[in-house]
């Protein structure tokens, strides 16, 4: 029963966080003169009358608190406002662009955690081996390289040569899973690798360090001396204890993951919500960006709740209260 109360409390604080983020973003966007926005929308040759009309149409002439109230009211009803240009509802736009983003986040996270943790565990159990040395060089390069450079190099030196030699499995752009398994993976594998590489480097380093420290503890020696198999010592006694700090880092990194998503979508032209938001900056399409910021806040809040629940499940000392 404790877990229900805990979830309710976490969700309530989560809602407050999202409200704060939405409010700050909303007022931040008022630092921008209304006139500039309207002028950009009406085009270069617009007369003052046309611009004024655009301001009126967008409701930007109303007092700021009225607009804020209107915005909040819409938000509660799940309405994120309307695009300045097409008048299309922002939630429809974002919903359309969500599938590539979700595919990218899920696939990339799975790959990142599997690779990061596996490599970290193997190098910790074989410290100072050739494998350990090679991967630590790889980790340093991964840490030093921006995601977009990896993406560009993958496009330039993997996708492009293969494609021009008639090997059409890898592709840029997005193909939904409904278009078949093969095109889906062909479109997504390179973005997944790009998204996973940077994060995996951090996690390899983190899990290696944690596991090395744990394996030096006395209780590991006890486990070994009572005759447990090496595998059991490492996985049941070592990895489980070593993973908890790694998991708490995961909550913090969920936000960074979204940043990576924006970059990877732009590099590979996946057309997800990240890429759409970057394009919205160029066009001064503020409602789209507000929508993206709110979605991002919701994602981070939910991801953190999930991570904390996992944390409690993994570490028996942590109690949900």
């Amino acid at each position: 029963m404790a877990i229900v109360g805990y979830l309710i409390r976490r969700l309530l604080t989560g809602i407050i966080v999202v409200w704060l983020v939405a409010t700050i973003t909303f007022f931040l966007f008022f630092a921008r003169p209304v006139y500039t926005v309207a002028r950009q929308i009406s085009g270069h040759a617009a007369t003052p009358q046309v611009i004024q009309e655009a301001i009126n149409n967008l409701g930007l002439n109303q007092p700021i608190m009225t607009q804020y109230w209107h915005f909040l009211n819409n938000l509660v009803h799940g309405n994120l406002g309307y695009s300045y240009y097409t008048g299309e509802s922002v939630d429809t736009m974002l919903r359309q662009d969500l599938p590539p983003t979700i595919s990218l986040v899920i696939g990339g996270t799975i790959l990142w955690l599997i690779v990061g943790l596996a490599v970290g565990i193997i190098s910790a159990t074989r410290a100072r081996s050739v494998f350990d040395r090679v991967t630590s060089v790889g980790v340093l390069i991964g840490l030093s390289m921006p995601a977009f450079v990896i993406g560009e190099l993958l496009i330039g030196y993997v996708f492009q040569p293969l494609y021009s030699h008639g090997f059409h499995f890898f592709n840029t752009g997005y193909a939904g899973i409904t278009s078949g398994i093969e095109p889906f993976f062909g479109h997504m594998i390179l973005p997944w690798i790009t998204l996973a590489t940077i994060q995996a480097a951090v996690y390899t380093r983190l899990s290696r360090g944690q596991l090395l420290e744990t394996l030096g503890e006395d209780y590991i020696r006890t486990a070994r001396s009572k005759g447990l198999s090496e595998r059991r010592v490492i996985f049941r006694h070592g990895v489980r204890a070593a993973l908890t700090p790694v998991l708490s880092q995961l909550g913090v990194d969920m936000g960074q993951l979204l940043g990576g998503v924006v970059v990877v979508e732009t590099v590979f032209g996946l057309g997800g919500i990240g890429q759409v938001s970057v394009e919205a900056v160029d066009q001064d399409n503020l409602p789209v960006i507000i929508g993206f910021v709110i979605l991002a806040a919701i994602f981070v809040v939910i991801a953190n709740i999930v991570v904390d629940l996992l944390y409690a499940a993994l570490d028996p000392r942590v109690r949900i209260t």
Partner: protein
Amino acid sequence: MSISTELEFDAHLAEEGQSSGGPVQGRTQWQLTWRRLRSDRVSMIALAVIVIMVLLAIFAPAIAALTHHPVNMAYPVNGENEDGNPVPPGTNGFLLGTDSTGRDLLVRVLYGARISLFVGIVTTLIATVLGVAVGLMAGYFGGIIDTVLARFTDAVLAFPYIVLALALAAVFGPSLTIIVVMITFFSWAGIARIVRGQTLSIKEKEYIEAARSLGAGPFRIMFFDILPNLLAPVLVIGTLYIPNAVVFEATLSYLGLGVQAPTPSWGNMLSDAQNFYQVAWWYLVIPAVALLITTLAFNLLGDGIRDAMDPRTERLIAARRMRRRLTRRNARQGNKEALSGLTAGGAAAAETRKKG
């Protein structure tokens, strides 16, 4: 601890009759660190690379003058081939080739280094000052101040920074100022968290109590008694934050949220190069390599400084030196005793490694 191992090491030297002579002198933590760092070849190479990069960035206008190619000057005739594409390195006096509009890539990469290093170093400096101040106050005062500051720090750490960068760029328009503000805003939190942890453990030490009983006020204790002991971890984390800031700047400029064309930055060059990788590999590869070398050098140097400040490293280095010297002597004299010393030293070193 580190001094004792240093003394042990000197004692080893003395035993072998190779001591520099004279009384054993005490060394400060910084002298010891520098000594260890100097014997680490990788860190020294990284430091050299950084110094060269900084010099190249400072003298970029001079180098541009030498090549007679101003940074934003396009050479549609010499700098482009008949299809209007960039020319490869070494053509028509363009040492590293040209970019999409026929500008000298060498000059533009060097000017890009100015932005990257400026952003990396300036933001890290500001963020370090902020982070140390916040962390010190949170750790020292504790209570409600600590709770508020720690919550705020956590919130900043969890916030998706590129999303906020998008919002800020949308409101104020993309610029270098936005980049510096953004990166500073997201960097201080990590530093504050580490400083807070260190402060918490330092403030329980006896000498802090002694200072307080002598009548020192909180600010005197914070800045004269605690701060000097924080410099070592802050130096390490500062060095490791510079490459992060460089990557951050490149990413924002790549997305078009940072430095705007025609001002060259590695990020916006790479963004433009994306359209030319089939015809001009150098346009993509050269800025990418410059970026990678810079961030790698800072990361390696940061790791090196951290290892050099860790007293445990001293034993590793001493053991390594011992072994090397013994091997050499062994080869010269075939000394059996030295051989047994070698294996003992090797076992000790292996033991230390396992722990490290």
